[in-house]
Structures are given as C-alpha cells and as structure tokens.
C-alpha cells in the first residue's frame, strides 16, 4: 500500500475532528453563558463532543497503526491537517449564533449517528450508538432554544436571524460525499450523507416554523474543510487548544 492513507483512517479522523472542534468552541462559553444553568448546559454538550472525539480519534489512531494516539492527533497536527467541516469552527458570536450553529449541526449528527449505529463495521457502529443518545438531546436542546429565541422579543429574534444567516452557508458541506466518504460507505463503515439531506431539511423546517423564522435563502455553499482549507478562525482556536502540548510536549498530570 506504500504511503496511501486508508480512507477509513480519514473517515474516523473527520468524525473526530468535527466533534473535537465543536467541543472546544462550546467550551469557550464556560463561565460566560447568560445564566449559570445555561453555562452547565453548554459545558455538558461540549463534554459530550470531546468524548466523541476521543473515541473517533482513538479509532483513527488504531486504523493508522503508527503509534500516534488520540491526543497526538488532537494536539499535534497543524491547521491544514484538520478535516472538520467549516460549520463547527465558526466563531461563537452571541448566544443566538452559537445556538444556530448547534441547531444545524446537532440535527445532522443525530441523523448521521443513527446511520452509523447501523453500519457493518462494529468499531464505527459502537461509537455511533453511544453518541446517538447524546446528540439526540443536543438536537432537542438547540431546537427548544431556536423556538424560544426566534419567537420571543424583537432583539432575540434579530440576533437569531443573524446567527442563522451566518451559519447557513456552511450547512451544505455536511452532506457532501467525496471519495473518502464513498470508500467508507462501500467498506460498511460509513453513512450516505447525501441521503440524509431531505430528513435534515424536514427537521430544520419544522423547528424554524415553530420559531416563526424564515428558512434562509439558498446561497453558494462554502466548502473545503474536509480537504484542510479552513477559515482563519480555526488557527486561532488551535493555538489556544494546542498551546500546552506545543509548549511542553508530552506534558501530563
């Protein structure tokens, strides 16, 4: 096989990177949320995401078989080597923008993990089944907040519309199937993401309707995260997340 990278390694890496970057983003709210209860609630979602990342990156490391572990993958790769979708690296903005991102992503994750839980490859299926319970709750939580914020005061509504508007152009990337995705699907380890789109649309539209919000107009999708072409925001996130391992390689406590 020479230096060819296994598609299943890349597939696990993508799943791990999505969860890791979103977990890190959400953890930025710790101590800053609008209320103590909301602080805990966002931290819980963040921890669930980091837990998923640990499983997926651990699996990626096993598949790679080069003695890199999940921590090495998380803390010692450069920004171009990250394969997360662009949506999860978007800045938190205000609370409404954070909720808009969570809303779009959690419904995707809920559908994705329901599919993953049923794949042939038991390693992927096991993580999918465990994570499905977590993201089902995330999707409910984010949807409830969308309705509250959308169908509330003029200010919360405006902020939610703006937050959704910011995040919307990054949603299409979630459903793109490239060679890696096709290979993982064929190998019984991956999900047909493109096929999830109608169900996702239905979920999103139902909540937006409850929230009395318009579905944002379709626009040119922004893609590139899976190939390592990231927004400027990811570099800043990594410099904070990776600081300790960069400054003190191998540090433990």
């Amino acid at each position, binding site marked *: 096989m020479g230096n060819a990278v296994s598609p299943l390694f890349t597939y696990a890496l993508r799943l791990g990177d999505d969860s890791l970057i979103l977990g890190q983003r959400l953890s930025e709210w710790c101590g800053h949320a*609008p*209320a*103590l*209860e*909301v602080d*805990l*609630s966002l931290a*819980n979602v963040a921890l669930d995401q980091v837990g998923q990342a640990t499983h997926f990156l651990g699996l990626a490391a096993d598949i790679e078989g080069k003695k890199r572990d999940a921590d090495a993958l998380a803390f010692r790769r450069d920004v171009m080597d990250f394969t997360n979708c662009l949506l999860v690296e978007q800045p938190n903005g205000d609370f409404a923008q954070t909720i808009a991102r969570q809303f779009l992503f959690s419904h995707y994750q809920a559908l994705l993990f329901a599919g993953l839980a049923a794949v042939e490859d038991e390693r992927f299926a096991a993580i999918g089944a465990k994570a499905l319970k977590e993201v089902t709750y995330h999707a409910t*939580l984010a949807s*409830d907040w969308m309705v*509250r914020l959308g169908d509330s005061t003029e200010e919360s509504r405006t902020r939610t519309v703006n937050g959704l508007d910011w995040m919307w152009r990054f949603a299409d990337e979630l459903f793109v199937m490239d060679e890696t995705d096709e290979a993982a699907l064929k190998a019984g380890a991956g999900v047909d993401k493109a096929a999830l789109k109608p169900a996702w649309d239905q979920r999103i539209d139902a909540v937006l309707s409850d929230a009395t919000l318009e579905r944002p107009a379709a626009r040119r999708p922004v893609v590139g995260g899976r190939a390592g072409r990231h927004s400027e925001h990811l570099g800043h996130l990594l410099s904070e997340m990776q600081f300790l391992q960069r400054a003190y390689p191998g540090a433990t406590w």
Partner: protein
Amino acid sequence: MSDPSKEWPLWEVFVRGKGGLSHRHVGSVHAADAKMAVEHARDTYTRRLEGVSLWVVPSAEITASDPGDAAALFEPAEDKVYRHPTFYKIPDGISHI
C-alpha cells in the same frame, strides 16, 4: 441579570435515584418555563448518573409550614414513642428503610 424582575423564576428539583425509590429534593434551578426547568435540572443535577426520573415544581407553588408554629406543630409528637415502629425486627438484607 441584575434586575430581579427580569430573572427566570425558581423551580425546585426532585430526582428519583432509581426505580422504587421516592423522588428526593436535590436543589433548585432558574428557568423560564417547565420544559426549560426539566432541561436545566437534567444538566445541573443528573450529570453523574444520579437519576432515572426528574420532577420540577415552581418554588412559588410550595406552601411551607411557618417556623413560628414549629412548637405547636411538631413538639406534641415528641413524647409519643409508641408511634415509632421500633418494636419490629427488620430482616437482614432489607435496604431503603
């Protein structure tokens, strides 16, 4: 959150630790309505596998006894030891009594 009139109302939280046990009061959360109160209670009080069921009750709906009446309410029971079921033998292996 400095203006108290704009704060979310308070809810008392009760958690059932496992099937067969009663719901037990564990604390309170702020929330705009019952649905949010359940979510906040879940995220605040069941993070370490503490529960299988949650109740939330608006704190304002609880009617409490008046501490000033404590003597009249509770002290008459003090000398009625015959009301305590201490004359029964409890078999070994019975928990939660």
